């Protein structure tokens, strides 16, 4: 019988026999994990703290009611707020419409394994990975100039942000539709409903919470996006709210960009205050999403 090479002496109790070096490695490892976890938390705290510290002084009503001015105490971001609202709402609605159509087609109508289906899915995945600035280039070439020639307007910005946000919207709409149990569809078919009737009356209504949270995700992204709009004229000195889709415009992220680049501390303060406004808007949006998500959980 071959001898057993045992690394431990035979013990008659069950006390901890892990070696010191093993235990030390365990502690070292856990310490490393904590360091990075704390890093994430500290980053968030410092980020918010720095912003509050710098922008606190400029937080009053005039920030929201005023328009840009060479005097930082008077400079306000009303144009940017309205510009953001125009651009974000438009792109949100348009991309939601397209995303719904695409998702419904892919999930309910098209053959799941078909090449067309796969082609579209791959395209969506590719788009999701494209850097945002490249969408700005696309907008510059086709929308601002080139074919559409809309120039640097609200319409241009909406079109470009629509394209950017589309992959996210499509993916979340598809997930929401997938989550609807097939028993719901079968019940409708069994009563003689056509496919479209089933979709409109049964599937989509029950997928609405998922679609809503997905849309809010997309809208949040559009609200915070800066890179593509740099190329699309949003940085210009805009001192009025948009009046139509052909108006000049600016958005919150870009006025933040502009003020952050200024050397004067007072302008930095305006930028920081604008950040606070932006973050408040984003938090509000996310709260809405959470509320929708929780409400929908209860109804099941």
């Amino acid at each position: 019988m071959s001898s057993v090479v045992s690394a431990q002496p035979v013990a008659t109790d069950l006390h901890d026999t892990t070696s010191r070096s093993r235990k030390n490695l365990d502690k070292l490892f856990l310490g490393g994990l904590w360091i990075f976890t704390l890093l994430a938390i500290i980053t968030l705290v410092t980020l918010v703290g720095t912003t509050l510290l710098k922008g606190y002084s400029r937080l009053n009503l005039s920030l929201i009611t005023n328009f840009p001015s060479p005097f930082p105490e008077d400079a306000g971001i009303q144009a940017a707020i309205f510009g953001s609202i125009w651009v974000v709402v438009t792109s949100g609605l348009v991309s939601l419409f397209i995303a719904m159509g695409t998702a419904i087609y892919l999930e309910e109508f098209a053959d799941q394994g078909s090449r067309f289906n796969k082609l579209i899915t791959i395209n969506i995945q590719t788009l999701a990975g494209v850097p945002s600035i490249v969408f700005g280039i696309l907008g510059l070439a086709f929308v601002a100039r080139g074919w559409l020639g809309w120039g640097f307007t609200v319409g241009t910005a909406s079109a470009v942000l629509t394209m950017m946000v589309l992959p996210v919207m499509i993916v979340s709409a598809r997930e929401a539709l997938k989550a609807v149990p097939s028993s719901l569809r079968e019940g409708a078919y069994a009563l003689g409903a056509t496919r479209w009737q089933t979709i409109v009356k049964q599937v989509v209504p029950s997928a609405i919470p998922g679609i809503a949270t997905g849309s809010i995700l997309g809208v949040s992204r559009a609200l915070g996006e800066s890179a593509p709009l740099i190329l699309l004229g949003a940085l210009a000195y805009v001192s009025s709210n948009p009046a139509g889709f052909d108006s000049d415009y600016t958005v919150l992220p870009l006025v933040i960009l502009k003020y952050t680049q200024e050397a004067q501390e007072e302008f930095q303060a305006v930028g920081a205050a604008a950040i606070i406004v932006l973050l408040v808007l984003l938090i509000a949006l996310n709260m809405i999403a959470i509320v929708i998500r929780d409400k929908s959980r209860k109804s099941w």
Partner: protein
Amino acid sequence: MNTVVTSVGELQPSGRKLRQQRTERVIRVLLMIVATSGVLVTTGVVVALVRPTVEFFRAVSISEFLGTTAWFPLYEPPDFGVWPLVIGTFSVMLVAVIIAVPGGLAIAFYLNQYASDRVRRNLKPILEILAGVPTVVFGFFAINFVGPNIAAKIWVFSDVGFYSALSAGITVGLMILPMMTTLAEDAMAAVPRALIEGSYALGATKRETCTGVIFPAALSGIIAAGVIAMSRAIGETTIVLLAAGSTANFSFDIGQPMQTMSSFIGFAGLGDQPTGSTGYQTIFAVGSLLFVITFFLNMLSRRIVSKFREVYE
């Protein structure tokens, strides 16, 4: 005995039902058109980039683009050596990835094997919030905190000024940290519980299970996540524009200001380039390069996940 004779058309739809079914076919076609729009956008991106790129390379030789090291395309006379941008891009990416990949792994291990439910419930929202912060806010953070307090303090090899690739890299790394954590965590969660239990049943500690079993088992997902993090760091514009300046330095010293491909495009876009000018076309040439690199990385990431999944079960 009567046999019931059915007329041929008894089970066919009529009237309203017939109209509904016809409408439905139309709807289906409409939806297909809508779905195709997604494809159109990708094609649009490619087309948008190709023509001006080709025209750019008619005006500027490839050997100058890839062979020289001075990048001053908007000056008179212009220089079109792209290397400063490439080096700048990879410098920022490297710093970012050094922070985000180990960091993401660490937090993911912690959430996966160590954190109690209470900690998890509090930590995850913090990560989600961090993930939702717009890049321009991170840019502000870079200029007002990371640059002066961190980059300037830790870089001992040279004097760090207001703009530096280091400051930009650290901030980009912090920005993509939550995303890397989520992806790594997903990869770890996919490791079958049986494997993990098998490790504990042999008397292994949590650390040994993490490094000896979970990490190798989740490796393909983790690598894919790292590649996506790289791609994201390469494509980042606003943070770099704010924190790294607009000097296309041909240098490996990350304490210096640098310009990346993305930040150059942003910078060029800020000034108004007349359509068709070489300056305008430069945007497209660099944009093509950027698109190709990120496209390749994303495909790599997907292939890693799909190709190595079999080795696993």
